[in-house]
């Protein structure tokens, strides 16, 4: 029995279907479509997400940039709650994932753990939703639902760096590509999968965010992608919301829809674009989707 409990798939959450769910602040507000589509997908895949009671903000890049104590203490509090709940903690936000998993790493030997309540004893695994779904690819009947859709999978920084918490290779990760292939879409080979989109600077230095996001989108367009798929609300915001302000100084205008990977997965699972809130992005993905007969 004991050995079974230690089986790797179990640790990665592969063997069980109940998870504590940490949506993170953005998914409750500007990234609601991500939350909604994630929940729909999980439900349909038999993954039970139990929202962590009374979760609070992970501190995001601001806590990290300001105080190393706070940067661990804030996510530490949520880790503590998750440990009490006893299920692996899953989040769809790459920023939250990174903060939580790094905190879980550091709490082992940081004095701050006392601040956050002693969570070092039984820290539950911290996972990104991509990992959870990846562990279930086998049960996702390869379906040709999205045939013809060319997708540029964008992972950004936080899922693949630093190595200690990365879910995949830092230069050419495959987990989202694998999922896209399974649901019939065509993941494009491109070189900007893990470039930085500008992270938390859109208010303070929008120029940097636009410069970086613009390069990423240009490259996605250059490889002929119909859309960019993301797994982080911050990447989405930088690439989608700021698209209108790009071009000009940085070169040509670019128009590439940016969607959450859960929205594409949701389409393949039979949900309608409206159920998945695909109509709520700044750059409308519906024309591209309908031209492929997907919406």
């Amino acid at each position: 029995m004991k050995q079974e409990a230690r089986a790797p798939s179990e640790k990665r959450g592969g063997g069980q279907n109940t998870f504590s769910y940490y949506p993170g602040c953005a998914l409750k507000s500007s990234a609601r479509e991500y939350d909604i589509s994630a929940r729909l997908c999980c439900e349909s895949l038999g993954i039970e997400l139990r929202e962590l009671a009374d979760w609070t903000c992970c501190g995001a890049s601001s806590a990290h940039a300001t105080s190393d104590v706070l940067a661990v203490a804030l996510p530490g509090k949520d880790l503590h709650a998750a440990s009490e709940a006893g299920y692996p903690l899953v989040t769809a936000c790459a920023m939250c994932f990174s903060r939580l998993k790094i905190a879980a790493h550091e709490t082992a030997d940081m004095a701050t753990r006392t601040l956050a309540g002693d969570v070092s004893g039984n820290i539950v695994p911290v996972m990104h939703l991509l990992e959870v779904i990846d562990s279930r690819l086998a049960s996702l009947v390869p379906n040709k639902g999205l045939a013809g859709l060319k997708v540029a999978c964008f992972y950004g920084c936080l899922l693949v760096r630093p190595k200690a918490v990365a879910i995949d290779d830092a230069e050419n990760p495959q987990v989202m590509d694998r999922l896209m292939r399974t649901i019939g879409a065509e993941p494009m080979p491109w070189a900007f999968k893990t470039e930085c989109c500008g992270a938390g600077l859109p208010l303070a230095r929008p120029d940097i965010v636009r410069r970086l996001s613009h390069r990423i989108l240009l490259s996605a367009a250059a490889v002929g992608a119909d859309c960019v798929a993301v797994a982080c609300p911050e990447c989405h915001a930088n690439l989608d919301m700021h698209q209108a302000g790009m071009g000009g100084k940085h070169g040509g205008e670019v128009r590439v829809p940016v969607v959450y990977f859960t929205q594409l997965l949701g389409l393949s699972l039979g949900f309608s674009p409206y159920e998945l809130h695909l109509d709520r992005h700044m750059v409308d993905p519906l024309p591209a989707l309908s031209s492929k007969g997907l919406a």
Partner: protein
Amino acid sequence: MPSPVIPESRSPVSRFVIEHSGQNPARCYQCGKCTAGCPAAPDMDMGPRQVMRALQLGMGREVLSCNSIWVCLQCQTCSSRCPKEIDIAKVMESLRLMAILEGHPAAEKNIALFNEVFLDVVKRHGRAYELEMGALYNLRSGHPTANARILVELVAKGRLALLPPAVRGVAKVRRLFDEAEAARRRVGREVRG
């Protein structure tokens, strides 16, 4: 920029960085791979390689006043590619913390301001509240109408929560903030000490 006094490699800043980040700047052989891949380098007055160099030479003041430590996106591209396996992002983080601890004026006021506003809001509500954050930031940065177009559109698409989040554990969050602040002051005194 004043010329470095050599050898001054044991400046308090270098010492703090070594201790806090666990990284030894002396390991850096100035190959420049970090700067070459750094997305923020074009906007930095000192690329990450130069920051490492300045630390080797003990040019502590210069590093604390450069904008690089603020525009660093913590993307970790540098750390993940450094052939000497130096965690440069961690060094940037240590420098930024030291600047804050020392009360060193931030070379990028708006970035520091954003972080401050963000954390204020989280402390108040336990979670981020985008509407309030945007408004506060705009007010305090002196650009009251910045990003108005985006805000309007978000509201129109039903993608912005209008009411602040209600979290029961907010008291605990506030306590964490206070304790973290106290810990920070302690370290600050030691650093200045």
